[in-house]
């Protein structure tokens, strides 16, 4: 089962859980599955039209999904999706 990894800042929306197993055969399906369980995550992952934000990059393993098919990219059972939002602190 693929997993979704979250930065610590988003775990306040998942009860402290930072690695969430997800079902689905595409990135979109896996995100949908996680968002069903943690609705508060939804606006942090994609906009109200379901489109990617230009300031939140989602990785499938080590690849930016924008270069491998976007939300339609195929996801395997051993894959890891990671949410990498822009942060500005210094």
């Amino acid at each position, binding site marked *: 089962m693929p997993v979704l990894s979250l930065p610590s800042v988003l775990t306040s929306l998942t009860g402290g859980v930072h690695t969430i197993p997800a079902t689905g055969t595409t990135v979109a399906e896996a995100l949908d599955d996680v968002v069903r369980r943690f609705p508060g995550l939804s606006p942090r992952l994609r906009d109200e039209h379901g489109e990617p*934000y230009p*300031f939140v*990059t989602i*990785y499938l393993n080590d690849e930016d999904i924008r270069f491998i098919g976007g939300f339609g990219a195929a996801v395997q059972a051993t894959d890891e999706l990671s949410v*990498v*939002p*822009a942060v*500005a*602190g*210094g």
Partner: protein
Amino acid sequence: MTAATLPERATGDLAPDEYLRYSRHLILPEIGIEGQRRLRQARVLLVGAGGLGSPAALYLAAAGVGTLGLVDFDAVDASNLQRQILHGTADIGRSKLDSARDRLHDINPHVHVEGFPVRLSADNAREIAEGFDVIVDGTDNFATRYLVNDLCVLRNVPNVYGSIFRFDGQASVFATADGPCYRCLYREPPPAGLVPACAEGGVLGVLPGLVGTIQATEAIKLITGAGTTLIGRLLLVDALHWRLRTVRVQRDPSCPACGTRTITDLTDAVQLCAAPAEVELDAIFAAVPEIEPAALSARLASGESLDIVDVREPYEFAIARIEGARLIPLAALEHRLDELSRDREIIVHCKAGGRSAQAVKRLRAAGFTRVLNLAGGIERWSHDVDPKVPRY
């Protein structure tokens, strides 16, 4: 990027005291005498002398970088000292540049420090960056990060990037000849309030130490040509669960900075999420009705029954609270409306007024008509009414 791509400058032999000072570098085959001479010739500009800039500057000075430029307009505040190790308790109130210069010269008197006591802007960035070989991005806001990126792309200067929030850090090297830039990773900055960079702030004090030293490492590798840099990779640091990994960052042909090159000049983006963040959120949410702390104090003293609702987080409530206030964190507000009475006037507050302004808007949308935002939050309350309430 290799050392060969950085400009050559006239150089002489190392002085006897430099051989001793840099001896642990000189015996590294990857650096050696030539690498040390390159470091001495190098000019590195650090944008920001705060959390990231502190360790980066300290190690670059210790390493023998010949010229360090520092851009920072701020003064040292007590709340900086948890992480900004360039500065000490005795420096509180001094300009960060003065404090940094003293500390860096103490570490290495051979280093020339050039200070720029200004906020980097589209108007001054080119002039400030003139002559520098590498720029280290240690800023604390999106607007300056995009400015630094575009400056580096336009001037063909490597951008040694680092960014931190809470327990998470990022580092990379952008804007080299063949590598991606920051806009390839994040095309545009987020609108205020969407990315959790402001009201839910905080950072582990040691985290900028980790990331800033990574930036110093990358700058040294760029200058000396040693090893493999983070060009094309983004280093992700999770200090809470101890995970370090790199992911690929590709050059985006449609990137407006380094791809299509449609960005041909520098502009000042709207300042988003800069510290102190909530002050800026205040401006965004200024449209909600407010009450001044002194006015609230007077009404409470007259015996009025007001419902004071604190929408901060529990850990903030534990640090400081207004007597009589009750805690309903902003995220829980929608689910706890039944705890509020429409017949009683509600005063909402947070740390500085940003989150509570959002709460006022939500409550009014839910039909609560007698709701006011405490102007300036508990910070202003502490300043104007009750100094015993700790500020944080």
